[in-house]
C-alpha cells in the first residue's frame, strides 16, 4: 500500500478524531462548570457526592470508563444498544471524565477570585447570576487558561483511547492499516497528525491568552 492510500484511508479517521475532540469539549466544559458548582455547594451532601464522583473519574482509567459506558446499559439493564451508541457512549464517557478534570480547574479558578469582587458586585446591585457570568467567570477564564491548555492537549491524545471500544477513529485505523500491511508507517502518520493537531490547539489557546492580556 502506498503512502497516499494510507493517508487517504486515515483521513476518515482523522475526521472522527476531531469529532470526538470537538464534541467532548462542547459537552464537558459546561458539564465541568456544573460539577464545579456542585463541588462548591453549601449543601454538604451534594458536595460530598460530587467530590466522590470527581475522585472516581480521576482515579480510574478513562479506557475502563469507556467500556463501562458502552457496555453498561446491557449489563445493568439488559438493554442492547443500537449502531450510533458506540459513538454516543464515547462522547458520554469522555464528557464524564473530562468534566471532572475541568470541574477541578474551574473550582480552583473560581475559589482564587478575591471576595471583594463578589462584594463590589453585590453592592452595585448585580444578581448572583449576573455577578458570576459578567464579573467572576470572565476573570476565571483568564486565570485557568494555562491549566485548561494542558488538559485540552491531553484530550487530543486521549481520543485514541476510543480504540478500546473499537471506534474507528484515526488511531484505531492506523493500527488496522499497520496490521494489514506489516508496517509502522501509519503510526508515524498518526504521530505527525497528533502533533500538528496539538500545535493548532496550542496556537488557538495562545491567541486567546494574548487576547485576554489586555488587563492584569
Amino acid at each position, binding site marked *: 500500500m502506498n503512502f497516499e492510500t494510507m493517508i487517504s484511508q486515515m483521513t476518515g479517521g482523522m475526521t472522527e478524531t476531531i469529532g470526538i475532540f470537538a464534541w467532548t469539549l462542547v459537552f464537558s466544559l459546561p458539564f465541568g462548570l456544573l460539577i464545579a458548582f456542585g463541588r462548591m455547594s453549601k449543601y454538604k451532601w451534594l458536595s460530598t457526592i460530587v467530590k466522590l464522583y470527581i475522585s472516581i473519574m480521576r482515579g480510574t482509567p478513562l479506557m475502563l470508563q469507556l467500556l463501562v459506558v458502552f457496555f453498561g446499559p446491557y449489563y445493568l439493564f439488559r438493554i442492547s444498544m443500537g449502531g450510533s451508541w458506540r459513538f454516543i457512549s464515547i462522547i458520554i464517557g469522555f464528557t464524564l471524565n473530562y468534566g471532572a478534570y475541568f470541574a477541578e480547574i474551574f473550582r480552583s479558578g473560581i475559589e482564587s477570585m478575591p471576595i471583594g469582587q463578589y462584594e*463590589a458586585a453585590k453592592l452595585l446591585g448585580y444578581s448572583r447570576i449576573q455577578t458570576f457570568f*459578567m464579573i467572576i467567570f470572565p476573570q476565571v477564564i483568564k486565570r485557568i487558561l494555562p491549566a485548561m491548555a494542558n488538559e485540552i492537549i491531553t484530550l487530543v491524545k486521549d481520543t485514541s483511547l476510543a480504540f478500546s471500544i473499537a471506534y474507528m477513529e484515526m488511531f484505531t485505523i492506523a493500527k488496522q492499516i499497520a496490521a494489514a500491511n506489516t508496517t509502522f508507517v501509519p503510526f508515524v502518520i498518526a504521530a505527525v497528525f497528533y502533533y500538528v493537531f496539538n500545535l493548532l490547539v496550542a496556537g488557538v489557546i495562545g491567541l486567546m491568552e494574548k487576547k485576554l492580556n489586555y488587563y492584569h
Partner: protein
Amino acid sequence: MYYLEINHLRKSFGDLEVLSDISLTLEQGKVLAIIGPSGSGKSTLLRCATYLERMDGGDLTYLGEKAVNMDEKGNSVYAKPAKLKEIQQNFGLVFQNFNLFPHFSVIKNIMHPLIKVQKKSKEEAKEIARKLLEKMGLSEKENSYPYQLSGGQQQRVSIARALALNPKVLFFDEPTSALDPELTGEILKVIRELASEHMTMVIVTHEMNFAKNVADYVIFMDKGVIVEEGSPDQIFTSDNPRTKEFLGKFD
C-alpha cells in the same frame, strides 16, 4: 425622617461579640465619621449596614424603609429579598481596596452596572459616566484599565462607580488606608467636595484631621461599643480617658 437609622445592632463571630447594642441615626446631607482603633468593630458596622454581614440583633432602616426588623427578643428579622434589593438602591459603598472590575475599562466599570442593573440605555450610561469621570479629573483615563491607574485614581473611579447609581447614602470603608500617604489627599479632596454638595455619607477613617474638618458628627468606637459620640469639637476635645488615649496616638 432619617436617611439611615440603626437600633440595638448586635453582631457576633462565633463566640466573639464584635458589636454590642450599636444605635445611630443620620440625617439627609450630613457626614458621619466613625473612628476608633483597629478591631473596634467599625468596619463590621459598615458591613452590617450594607448587607455584607448579617446582623444578629437590632434593626436597620433607610429613608423610613425597614430593611431589618427586630422581633420581641431583639433579634434581627430581615425583609424579603425583593424588599432588601429595593432598599439597597439607597446606598453605595466605597471599599478600602477599590474592588474595581479589572477586566472592564474605567468607563465600563461605571457604565456596566447602570446598563445591567438599572437598565439604562448605553447612551445615558455613557453620559453619566463621562460626567462623573470629569468631576473626578479622570476624563482622559476612560479607556484605561484599572491596572494602568495609580491607587488614588482607582479609588476615584470606584467613587464614581458608586455615585453613578445615585445613592442616597454613601459609605466609605477606610477609603485611604490602601493608598500611599501622598495619594490620600486627592481622595479626601473628592470626599470633601461631595460633602459640600450635601451628599449623605458615613466614613470609617483613620484620618483624624479629615474627620474633624469634614464630619458633622463623630462616633468613637472601641471593643464593639460606641464609647462617645458628638460633634467633632466635642469628640476632639473630649475628657473621656479612652477617647483621649486613642486621639493622643495621632498627635
